[in-house]
């Protein structure tokens, strides 16, 4: 079963546990500035929203890469950056419509979410289940269930 990250902003409290988990998993330090997932705060609305790569099927970044450094991970379906091949040209960061591929000045390469090879650390760390790793064909299942419950209670 192919799985995908499901992000539910209404459950997010803005604690940044996901950013720390991501940066530690990938860089070996607790460092939100090196996280592939970001939590945005909309202060005046009192809202928080985690955001990261949705692993597009026809990935702009992959097609844009001139050296074929971005490849499909057959196991997870993620689009992974092969660091040894990446030349840091940043064309993928321009191609991505969502801004989820970013340049890392320390390494001279780009970084993006690779689903941690199938065990995403952000989902593991999220204390409120705002980030979960679920069946990619049914990311709407819980929302469907919630609305279904409403129709039951109304009838």
């Amino acid at each position, binding site marked *: 079963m192919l799985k995908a990250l499901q992000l539910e902003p209404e459950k997010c*409290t*803005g*604690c*940044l*546990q996901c950013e*720390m*988990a991501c*940066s*530690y998993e990938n*860089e*070996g*330090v*607790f*460092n*939100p*500035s*090196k996280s592939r997932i970001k939590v945005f705060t909309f*202060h*005046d*609305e*009192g*809202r*928080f929203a985690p955001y990261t790569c949705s692993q597009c099927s026809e990935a702009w970044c992959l097609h844009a890469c001139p050296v074929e450094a971005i490849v499909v991970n057959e196991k997870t379906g993620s689009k992974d950056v092969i660091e040894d091949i990446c030349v840091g040209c940043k064309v993928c960061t321009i191609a991505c419509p969502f801004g989820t591929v970013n340049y890392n000045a320390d390494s001279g390469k780009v970084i993006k979410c690779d689903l941690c090879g199938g065990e995403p650390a952000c989902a593991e*760390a999220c*204390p*409120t289940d705002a980030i979960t790793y679920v069946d990619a064909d049914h990311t709407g299942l819980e929302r469907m269930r919630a609305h279904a419950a409403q129709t039951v209670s109304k009838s």
Partner: protein
Amino acid sequence: MAWQRRILRVNLTDETCVEEPLNMDWAMKYLGQRGLASKYLMEEIDPLVDALSPENKLIMATGPLTGTMASTGGRYSVITKSPLTGAIACSNSGGFIGAEIKQAGWDMIIFEGRAPQPVYLYLENDAAELCSADEIWGKTVWQADEILHTKYQDPLIRIAAVGRAAEQGCLYSAIVNDRHRAAGRSGVGTVMASKQLKAVVVRGTKGVGGVRDPKAFFKATSEGKKVLSDNAVTGEGLPVMGTQVLMNVINEVGAMPTRNMREVQFEGASKISAEAMHEPRESDGEPNLVTNAACFGCTIACGRISTIDPQHYTIQNKPEYIGASGGLEYEAAWALGSDTGIDDLDALTYANFLCNEDGWDPISFGATVAAAMELFELGAITTEHTGGIDMSFGSAEALTKAAELVSAGEGFGIELGMGSKRLCEKYGHPDLSMTVKGQEFPAYDPRGIQGMGLAYATSNRGACHLRGYTVSSEIMGVPVKTDPLSTEGKPELVKAFQDATAAVDSSGLCVFTTFAWTLEDIAPQVAAACEGSWTPESMLAAGERIWNLERQFNLAAGLTRADDTLPKRLLKDAAKTGPAKGMVNRLDEMLPLYYESRGWDVEGVPTAATLSRLDV
């Protein structure tokens, strides 16, 4: 090691920023944050200095777990000599700037001297620079925050700043970070402004690495998070209700200080409670509470994000207060509401917004307004003094006008900004000031919770609930239930809470975790992150060492046994209602036993044997 091992020393007089190594010998004894910075302060200043002189120093300190994945690991503290109390001040704040300082590669920042012109510190990783504060001096914290964010075009910078209240000398001014988190008590913001330091702007992209044993750290922090989520208080009560979960509980046990602590129960408590914050209001059908929010790394998320009723009188033609911002915590709701007899939730929320906007302590402010209201009732203060404000108990208009005046440092707000001790002395009724060591009481009446009376009287920073929160044991039964109306065992209980809390406050973690965690849960996290041998026992010993160090500072600053007391009202006037009806606080039964259990002499001075045992 989870320390960065680096201190930034900022000399404001000379306008220099210099790096120096963290004293690791001290870190092994005092851990970090509160303990370690208190050690630096003790070594570097004469405790007798005027708190608002250039000779005082102000330290912003993180703990070893700040900036890590440990739950609540985002705290920092501000340590200095307090202008409100003359004692050592240590104000702890969450939000995000503490972690950002650590991410930038620093354990603490020591500010010394006084800048010739208003400045702010810009800190980006290794680069530290003092910049002219011309654009932001005289502005509110929120305005300064917006101007600086616009200037740097970087949404990820974190900012701590003082508001107009601090610039105008309000003695309980706070340092506000991330718009609505604050190092709130004891006037640490007043000290910052006295140094002509308006703000600290931080961007850290270096991260916190080098955890001693990563595998053990992930295991210990994960287990700790599970304990928090499984606990009724930290897993459910605080996220859903916030600290305001206490309002109805404390009122029922008859420990809700009301109308300047004349009474112990407030008839309007339910209207300003957590439950009331969830109720949809008439005007727009929205509740006061928008959401709960977390500080850096916190898996509890007790923070309140609120809005004010758009129809409320306080915000007509003031669009800047329409959006969501930091809402009422229990202490603020009590001080602004119950202690003044005001049950208007939106007026309290508005006053709370102002306290964040211009940086002042809502506890000290509310209690000072309460004292002013009693003075007004007695006729000692009249509308001539107040500039026409009718300062009657229960008047929301009086509260919100007073808040505006304190924020701006104008009119009667200047007198209210002195705090209740100085106000009551000035108008001839010193006994009406509900303070210890000049600092106003928080929201637990010590007639109904006996241990808190001793905790207030002996707190090293003046009246404070966060130095030894025996409410946990006396009301909530954590870790064991004790009788709130009895003094038996309280000296030892207070000491144990004080020592453990000093250790938690020095680690980078939030004291609210201790509703669920004991040092048995915390020590493994510290031990996995840090060098040294950190066990529950060694942490408790460090806590006791820190407590005695703070005591040493205060004694050297001229405080004595006579300062370890409570206002007469709490010792002589019995509670009128509730379970504690007919009771006063029996401090005299507890204090001598407390000194004894601390290894202090009858004057409250640590004996040579005690200091030697603790290696202070």
